C-alpha cells in the first residue's frame, strides 16, 4: 500500500467519500419518506473505489458506469444539484429528467454513459478509448461495473477487444460479493476476478476496494500505463455491499456474519479513524468536511424539489437530433419529384457492391473522423462480399479495423467512438447477427441521446447485409429485420435497392447525427447502375418512384423492389399500369410520398422481404387506411414473406419470399 499520498490527497479522498455517503443517504431518506418512488441501488461499502480513482482523472477523461451509480457520479464531478434534479425527474437534471436514476449522463464531467444493463458499459468504454487512441488525445476511459457483470458475454467480448487493440481503458470490477440477490459461490466458481484478465493477456490486479489509498495506488499504475499506450488493465476492487440489492430489499440473501463484519469496517468511518489516528486531520477539520457535504446535499435536494419538471414539449425532443423525422410528428412537405433522384446521364456504371466500397472510400478520404470496424473487413479478405476490399490498404488498419467475431464488442465500440465525436461505420456481416447485439443497438445506440436529455449523441452507421432470396443461406442469414429496428425509437433504418442509392444513402448515414442501420441486399450486390463519382448524399426519408403508373402503387424497399419492377412489367402486358414506389428508408418514413402516390392510384400493395405477419407493411397499410380511407378502391394488400423460417431448399425458398408472381396475383385481385 502506498503511503506517499499527500495530506491533500487523503483529505480529498475523505471529502469525496463523505459527499457520496451524504448523497446516498439523502436519496434513501427521500425514498423512506415516500417522496421519491423508484428502484434505488445504494452504494454503501463502495465509496472508496471512485474516491481513490477520482484524483487521477480530469474532466477530459471518460467514465462509463452502471446503475449502482451514485458513488461513481459524485466522484466524477457531476454537480449534486443536477444529480438530485435527475433523481426527482426534473428538467434541471443531468438528462432533463428523461433518464432518471439509472441513466445519468454528464459529458461536461466526462461521465458519458450510465447503463441499466449489466455488463453493457464495457464494450462502449472500448469505443471511447478507441477514439482517444485514434485522436491521440491522451484521454483514458474508466468503466465501472459490478462482479455480476463478469458473467456476461459483453464483459468477455470487451476485455478481449481492449487487449487486442491495446486500448487506454481501465476496467474496474467493483466486487461487492453479490450479483443482485445471488452470492458469488452460487453464480461463479471464480474467486479472483482479476485473474480473468490473464485469459486475454491483459494485466489484472486485485485491490482492497474499501481503502481509497490502495485503490488510488493501483489505479494510478494502471492509468499511467494506459496513458503511455501500454493497454488496458482489469482492476478488481474487493469490497462488501452494506445493504440489500436495492432500497427496501431485505438482506436475507446475504451472509449475516460477513455483512456484520463489513459494517464494522465500513469504508467511511474506518478511513475517518485512520485520518485521526495518523494525525492527518483534526476532528474539527473532518467535522467541517462532513458539515459542508451535508449542506451541499441538502441544498441540492432543496433545489431539486423546487425545480420545474420537464415541459410537455420535452417528450419528443432528443429522440433524434431534430424531431421532424419522428414518424408520428412527421409533417415534412413532399421532397420528391418523380425522376429527380436519378443520377445524371452518362455517369459511369458500378455494381451495388462497388458503389458501397466507393462510398466508404470517399467517406474515409474526406473525413478523418470516419473509422470502420467489423469482421473480416480488412485486406486481404476485404469483407465477405468484398465490400471493403482495398480500403484497409488505402486508409490503414487503424481506420479499417478487423475485429474478433464479437458483435456486441463491435457495436459497443462503434457507439463509444460515436459518443466521443467520431463517425464510426460498423459492419454486422449479416443482419441476422444483429440479434446477437440487439442490446447495444436497441438499448444503447437508439436510446443514449434520449436518456441523456440530448447531452450525448450516437452518430454511428451500421452496415449489414440481408442474404435473402439468393439461395443457399437458409434461416439464419436471410431474414430482413427492419421492423425490429423501426420499433425502437431513435434508430434510422435505411434500405437501398440500387447502386446509386447504396452510395448516396450510405454517405448520408455517415454524416447523419443519429444512429443509422443500412440494410444491404445481397441480391442487389452484383446488379449494375450509374453511380456518380465523389461525394454526394441522398436525403434520408425521401422515397423514389422507380416506375410511374396510374392503376396501383407497389410500395417496397431493398431487393423486393426488383420483384415489384418485374411484376409491373408483367402487369403492363395485361394493361395494368403499376407504379413502383421505393421508400429507401422506413425510418424516416416518407409519408407525403406514400399519400401522394396512393391518393392518385387508389390501390396499394406493400411488398417486403420480411415476414408479412407483424411486418412493417402493417404500419404502412394502417397509415394509408387512416389517411385515405374514403378514397381507396380496395383495402391495402400486403405481400411479405410467409410465416416460416427461411427455408434452405430451392424448392421452398421461392415459396417463402415475395416474388413477382405473387405480386402480380395480388395486383390482379386488387384491380379487378
Amino acid at each position: 500500500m502506498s503511503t506517499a499520498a499527500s495530506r491533500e490527497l487523503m483529505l480529498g479522498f475523505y471529502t469525496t467519500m463523505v459527499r457520496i455517503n451524504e448523497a446516498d443517504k439523502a436519496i434513501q431518506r427521500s425514498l423512506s419518506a415516500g417522496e421519491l418512488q423508484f428502484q434505488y441501488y445504494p452504494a454503501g461499502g463502495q465509496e472508496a473505489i471512485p474516491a481513490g480513482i477520482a484524483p487521477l482523472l480530469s474532466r477530459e477523461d471518460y467514465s462509463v458506469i452502471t446503475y449502482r451509480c451514485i458513488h461513481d457520479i459524485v466522484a466524477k464531478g457531476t454537480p449534486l444539484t443536477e444529480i438530485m434534479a435527475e433523481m426527482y425527474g426534473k428538467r434541471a437534471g443531468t438528462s432533463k429528467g428523461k433518464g432518471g436514476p439509472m441513466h445519468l449522463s454528464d459529458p461536461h464531467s466526462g461521465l458519458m454513459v450510465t447503463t441499466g444493463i449489466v455488463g453493457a458499459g464495457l464494450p462502449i468504454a472500448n469505443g471511447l478509448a478507441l477514439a482517444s487512441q485514434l485522436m491521440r488525445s491522451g484521454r483514458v476511459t474508466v468503466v465501472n461495473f459490478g462482479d455480476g457483470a463478469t458473467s456476461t458475454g459483453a464483459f468477455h467480448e470487451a476485455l478481449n477487444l481492449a487487449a487486442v487493440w491495446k486500448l487506454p481503458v481501465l476496467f474496474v470490477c467493483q466486487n461487492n460479493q453479490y450479483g443482485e440477490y445471488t452470492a458469488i459461490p452460487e453464480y461463479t466458481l471464480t474467486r479472483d476476478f482479476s485473474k480473468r484478465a490473464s485469459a486475454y493477456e491483459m494485466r489484472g490486479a486485485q485491490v482492497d476496494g474499501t481503502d481509497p489509498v490502495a485503490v488510488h495506488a493501483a489505479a494510478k499504475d494502471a492509468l499511467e500505463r494506459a496513458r503511455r499506450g501500454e493497454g488496458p488493465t482489469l482492476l478488481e476492487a474487493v469490497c462488501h455491499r452494506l445493504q440489500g440489492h436495492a432500497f427496501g430489499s431485505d438482506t436475507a440473501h446475504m451472509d449475516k456474519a460477513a455483512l456484520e463484519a463489513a459494517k464494522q469496517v465500513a469504508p467511511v468511518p474506518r478511513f475517518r479513524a485512520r485520518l485521526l489516528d495518523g494525525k492527518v486531520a483534526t476532528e474539527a477539520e473532518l467535522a467541517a468536511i462532513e458539515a459542508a457535504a451535508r449542506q451541499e446535499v441538502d441544498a441540492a435536494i432543496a433545489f431539486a424539489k423546487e425545480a420545474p419538471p420537464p415541459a410537455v414539449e420535452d417528450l419528443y425532443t432528443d429522440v433524434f437530433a431534430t424531431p421532424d423525422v419522428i414518424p408520428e410528428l412527421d409533417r415534412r412537405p413532399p421532397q420528391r419529384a418523380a425522376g429527380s433522384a436519378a443520377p445524371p446521364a452518362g455517369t459511369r456504371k458500378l455494381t451495388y457492391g462497388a458503389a458501397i466500397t466507393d462510398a466508404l472510400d470517399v467517406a474515409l478520404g474526406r473525413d478523418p473522423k470516419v473509422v470502420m470496424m467489423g469482421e473480416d473487413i480488412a485486406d486481404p479478405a476485404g469483407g465477405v462480399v468484398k465490400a471493403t476490399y482495398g480500403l484497409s490498404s488505402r486508409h490503414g488498419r487503424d481506420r479499417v479495423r478487423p475485429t474478433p467475431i464479437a458483435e456486441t464488442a463491435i457495436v459497443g465500440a462503434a457507439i463509444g467512438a460515436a459518443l466521443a465525436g467520431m463517425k464510426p461505420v460498423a459492419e454486422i456481416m449479416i443482419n441476422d447477427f444483429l440479434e446477437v447485439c440487439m442490446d447495444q443497438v436497441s438499448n444503447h445506440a437508439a436510446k443514449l441521446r434520449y436518456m441523456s436529455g440530448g447531452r450525448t449523441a450516437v452518430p454511428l452507421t451500421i452496415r449489414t447485409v440481408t442474404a435473402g432470396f439468393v439461395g443457399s443461406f437458409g434461416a439464419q442469414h436471410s431474414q430482413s429485420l427492419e421492423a425490429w429496428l423501426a420499433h425502437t425509437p431513435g434508430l434510422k433504418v435505411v434500405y437501398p435497392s440500387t447502386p446509386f442509392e447504396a452510395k448516396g444513402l450510405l454517405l448520408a448515414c455517415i454524416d447523419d447525427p443519429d444512429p443509422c442501420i443500412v440494410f444491404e441486399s445481397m441480391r442487389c450486390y452484383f446488379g449494375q447502375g450509374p453511380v456518380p463519382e465523389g461525394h454526394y448524399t441522398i436525403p434520408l426519408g425521401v422515397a423514389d418512384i422507380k416506375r410511374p403508373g396510374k392503376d396501383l402503387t407497389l410500395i417496397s424497399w431493398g431487393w423486393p423492389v426488383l420483384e415489384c419492377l418485374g411484376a409491373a412489367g408483367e402487369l403492363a402486358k395485361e394493361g395494368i399500369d403499376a407504379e413502383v414506389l421505393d421508400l429507401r428508408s422506413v425510418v424516416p418514413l416518407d409519408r407525403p410520398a406514400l399519400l401522394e402516390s396512393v391518393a392518385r392510384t387508389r390501390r396499394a400493395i406493400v411488398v417486403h422481404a420480411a415476414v408479412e405477419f407483424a411486418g412493417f407493411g402493417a404500419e404502412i397499410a394502417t397509415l394509408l387506411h387512416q389517411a385515405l380511407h374514403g378514397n381507396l378502391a380496395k383495402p391495402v394488400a400486403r405481400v411479405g414473406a410467409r410465416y416460416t423460417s427461411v427455408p434452405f431448399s430451392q424448392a421452398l425458398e421461392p415459396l417463402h419470399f415475395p416474388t413477382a408472381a405473387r405480386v402480380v396475383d395480388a395486383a390482379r385481385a386488387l384491380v379487378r
Partner: protein
Amino acid sequence: MSMTTTLRIPKAAVSMQEGTLVTWLATDGAVVREGDPLYTLEIEKSTLDVESPAAGVLRHVGVAGATYKVGDVIGEITSPEAAPE
C-alpha cells in the same frame, strides 16, 4: 421555524403497489433521530424496518395493521429548528 417531513408509504420493491404497516416501532409523539427505525412495513414476502428520514417529533397518521398504497400518508415528523442529533 419548524420543518415538517411527510411520511408516505415508500416504494420498496420493483412490483410493490401497496404495503402493510405492521407495527409502529416509535410511538406517537416520540422524539426520533434520523435513521431511527419508525415502523415495520410488510410487502409481498418480506418485511422492512423503515428508517426515519428526519429528526423531530413523530406523529402517527396510519394505523398498525392497515394496508396502504404506495404514496399514502402514514405520518409526519416535525423538526424544530435545532433538531435533536
